[in-house]
């Protein structure tokens, strides 16, 4: 009899049983959530689904375009910070650090309100959004590139120098390939942060996902339904990117 009981206890405390209990609890929570969600009034929201989907698409477009543009700008910045001659190195460091210490919202306002004053040309809110998000992406990616370059052990470049390779060849054939491989997860992880940052260009009137939700809410007033869509849109987008990062490196610590 006592043997039976200890068997049961061992069964209940096994990791497998715990996982089953957890999955079961998640399933119950999911069913309850669905029951609540179904009771909400979806007719008003369903009418503007195309508008909302366009907004989500614009957010994705903003994030992807600006991470590509930012990446192009980040490469020379990172190279200047790591390999630049003394003056250039400090200038790049100062530029990267001061932009990183500035609130993202201030950068958005800065590009939108002050770029026209400085250059004398009108800037559309879409271009200002792309510009400011690219600046934000550039400085953060520059740090990712720098970390990637530093992640290659010194012995690698010393060894290739000892075999008689020039410093440029060492960089191109030895350091860069290893650095790129190390920084792929961090690069994609930056997209999570940037995708969330796209919500800030709401403030300068770009009709991205956040603004399209608030505009719809002003028209039909369905805050619970619309904020649920808003949360799901951002959560699923960021979660998808996170999954991609984990696919590259299951142990990657996501900190943007």
């Amino acid at each position, binding site marked *: 009899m006592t043997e039976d009981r200890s068997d049961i206890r061992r069964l209940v405390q096994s990791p497998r049983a715990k996982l089953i209990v957890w999955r079961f609890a998640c399933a119950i929570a999911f069913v309850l959530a669905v029951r609540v969600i179904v009771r909400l009034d979806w007719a008003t929201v369903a009418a503007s689904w195309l508008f909302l989907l366009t907004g989500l698409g614009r957010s994705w477009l903003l994030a992807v375009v600006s991470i590509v543009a930012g990446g192009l700008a980040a490469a020379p910045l990172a190279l200047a910070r790591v390999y630049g001659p003394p003056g250039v190195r400090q200038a790049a460091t100062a530029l990267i650090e001061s932009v990183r210490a500035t609130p993202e919202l201030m950068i958005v306002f800065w590009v939108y309100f002050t770029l026209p004053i400085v250059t004398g040309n009108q800037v559309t809110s879409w271009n200002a959004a792309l510009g400011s998000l690219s600046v934000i992406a550039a400085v953060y990616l520059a740090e990712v590139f720098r970390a990637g370059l530093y992640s290659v052990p010194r012995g690698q470049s010393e060894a290739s120098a000892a075999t008689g390779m020039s410093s440029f060849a060492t960089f191109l054939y030895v350091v860069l390939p290893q650095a790129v491989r190390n920084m792929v997860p961090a690069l994609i992880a930056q997209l999570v942060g940037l995708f969330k940052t796209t919500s800030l260009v709401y403030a300068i009137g770009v009709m991205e996902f956040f603004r399209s939700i608030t505009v719809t809410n002003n028209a039909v007033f369905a805050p619970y339904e619309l*904020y649920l869509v808003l949360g799901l849109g951002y959560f699923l987008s960021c979660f998808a990117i996170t999954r991609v990062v984990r696919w590259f490196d299951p142990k990657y610590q996501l900190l943007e």
Partner: protein
Amino acid sequence: MDWHILWQYRAALWDGLVVTIWISALGILGSTAVGVVVGCLGATPSFFLRKLTSAYTELLRNLPLLVKVFFFYFVLSMPTVPAALLGLVLHQSAYIADVTGAGIRSIARGQLDAGLALGHRYWQVFRYVILPQAVRIVIPPMTTQYVAVIKNSSIVALIAVQDLTYQTQEINVETFRGFEAATAATALYVLVAFAVIGSMTILQRRVLAR
């Protein structure tokens, strides 16, 4: 460019700076309290605590701060400052929980096993063996998180909390001197951030000296 405008609006900028410092300070305190507790619970051997805390951080980290702040303000109709603070604290606590958890997990598992083998309870080992070591590891990433709180506090201007960013917008609306105002505000933000970085560096030296 007309830098006199800054002197003319010095009272507005000062008020904004005071609000930004207040919101940031309360945000830092709140998110540290919540984040450290969640992070410590997530680092315990308990399966369910680990799952629950990872659900908490996954959910909060994958939503923009703006969504949280607007949700509390417009959907739950909270007053501006509590909505802003709650949003800031929930947002950053998820990151701080991850930083704390990573710091605790970086302490070798053998330390915990050795403590348990000596007959101590989990909480005793945690308090006297793991925590003192984890604090040293966690301080540098915590500084990054605190600077992030200061930066993120600018978002509360969008629900009309009259912080530094809000005052910058006011000056821009009244005088079209957005460039000067934004420059001054950015300089002030960087100053506050450097003050936090400096004090954390001093704290780290004192902790390491012990």
